[in-house]
């Protein structure tokens, strides 16, 4: 169950091209599992930016000197993230969390491959820790446009049996995409389950590569969100349900983590004709 808290910035740091913000936010850390996210108000109380910004939770501490803290990694994208990047310790920010459905952990000791794109590696690091605590083997595949957009590769290396890195420009690891190296990793490690977080195109490629091998995948999607708590219906994508019926589901409450083979990747951004309630015979309205 999420809480709404007036958080306080404890620290800000730069990590390559990204910013890391740690907030004192009592009540959130205790409830957080890997894959959960927080939604922040931006711009202060008189802000003209009305909507919350969503960020995957990277690290939590249940009891610091000041109470529970939450850390997330972000890149400056538009006005809201630019405002966040300009915050300083002791600034106040309204935060809601933890939100969404987290990654589901396997029951037994299995071999897990974790695939992260850009800042998408942030929620995979606490997941790796949780998997290792259960005795799972963890292998990482991390990719980004360039070296400064990789996140957490050192921690990932420490927590895994192997790590493969790709960059678009070859500034670190192999030049190319994670999908270029993933097949070998899946086969070499006798992978049982794949977890992924990153851009939608990457998640699609990862889901397909896993599905081809009959390996289950769990992917954390990133859809544009207005509320993050399930009341606005903006964050939907077509997902196949347990009953085989496709629905436009809210990624903020039913996701952001979905089974990779349930997301209709071809149809994201559209309303496929066989989705429940389609086609729109009557049009219009809001």
């Amino acid at each position: 169950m999420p809480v709404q808290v007036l958080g306080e910035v404890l620290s800000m740091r730069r990590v390559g091209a990204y910013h890391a913000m740690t907030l004192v936010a009592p009540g959130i850390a205790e409830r957080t599992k890997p894959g959960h996210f927080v939604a922040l108000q931006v711009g202060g109380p008189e802000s003209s930016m009305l909507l919350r910004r969503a960020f995957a939770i990277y690290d939590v501490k249940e009891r610091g000197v000041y109470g529970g803290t939450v850390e997330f990694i972000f890149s400056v994208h538009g006005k809201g993230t630019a405002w966040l990047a300009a915050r300083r310790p002791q600034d106040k920010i309204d935060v809601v969390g933890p939100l969404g459905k987290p990654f589901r952990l396997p029951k037994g000791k299995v071999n897990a491959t974790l695939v992260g794109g850009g800042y998408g590696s942030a929620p995979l690091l606490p997941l790796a820790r949780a998997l290792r605590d259960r005795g799972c083997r963890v292998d990482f595949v991390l990719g980004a446009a360039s070296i400064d957009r990789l996140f957490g590769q050192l921690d990932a290396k420490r927590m895994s049996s192997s790590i493969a890195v790709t960059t678009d420009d070859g500034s670190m690891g192999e030049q190319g995409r994670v999908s270029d190296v993933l097949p070998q990793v899946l086969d070499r490690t006798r992978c049982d389950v794949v977890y992924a977080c990153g851009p939608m195109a990457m998640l699609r490629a990862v889901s397909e590569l896993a599905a081809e091998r009959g390996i289950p995948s769990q992917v954390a999607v990133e859809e544009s969100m207005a509320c993050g708590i399930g009341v606005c219906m903006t964050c939907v994508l077509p997902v196949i349900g347990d009953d085989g019926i496709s629905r436009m589901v809210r990624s903020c409450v039913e996701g952001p983590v979905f089974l990779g083979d349930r997301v209709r990747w071809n149809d994201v951004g559209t309303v496929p004709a066989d989705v429940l309630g389609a086609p729109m015979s009557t049009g219009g309205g809001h």
Partner: protein
Amino acid sequence: MSELTVRPATAQALPAVDLTTRLGDATFPNPVFTASGCAAAGQELEQFFDVRLLGGVVTKSIMLAPRSGRPTPRMAETPSGMLNSIGLQGPGIDAFLEHDLAWLAARGARAVVSIAGGSVEDYAKLAMRLRGQPGLAMVEVNISCPNVEDRGQVFACDPVAASGVIQAVRRNTDNRVPVFAKLSPDVTDIATIARACVNAGADGLSVINTLLGMAIDTTTMRPALGGVTGGLSGPAIRPVAVRCVWQVHQALPEVPILGMGGIRTGLDALEFVLAGASAVSVGTTVFGDPTAPIRVLHELAHALAQRGFERIEDAVGFAHRAPELYIPEEPDPVGDDEPLPARRSVGFEEDR
């Protein structure tokens, strides 16, 4: 660090203002409601506060059949507002009654069910399905929908089409349950539509729905919304909404109004009350601040108390009243037949 608080601040006492408000034949303990499409059916908000504390929960407009809505992106943030093109995604009336209204009833919340359709018959059927449902406090008719039988003309923009819908809903709704027509601001004269709806049997009016708007993404150089155009909401539209409430109250002073459009604070809500609203809905603000309706309720109560109102009822439409003239209650101390005493000359002290 000490001022870090978990919100909402618990059980803050409301000042001694009678907040009871009447909308048609229904009485609500206070005038702050959610807005249709901005609170789903209350369950998600219940994680943040007790939805029974609200005057009522206005549910997302429901249609007869399940509906998938429009393609993404469905939202674009604009200065102090947002555009949405959700396309009335919803589970259809059967699932709504079974899961959503049943939950609200069990919770003891007052449900204002918003209905939407593509034809007069759709609306009539929806009203029939709602008959006798426990928990139903009021019906809000979203007439900002295209009429499939009239080349997609929006009901809310045509007094005849709007009356047809309202008449059908009123006829098929329990007598004790008020029917409110929700008006669109995208019309030449909102009072004309308001009057048509009231003549067709509406017990009150919800004012306003979103304004039609559009944004273009300058990177892709394409419309920002999957649905191309969308509804504008949030504080950006508040002056338009206050104007609409003012005009409707002026034209129909006896008809109760549920006012909305960009309410963010208690003073914003008070503006609507002073313009003529008996209750208000908090919509888009909830996306950025899930506990906002409770905050607005407290702020409104304090704002009324500060201004000396003992009952919210007395503040409804107050801004329409002419500044009052001073009429002495005592008879003139000087009798009619007595001559006025001569005026004395006044001397002033020197400035030191």
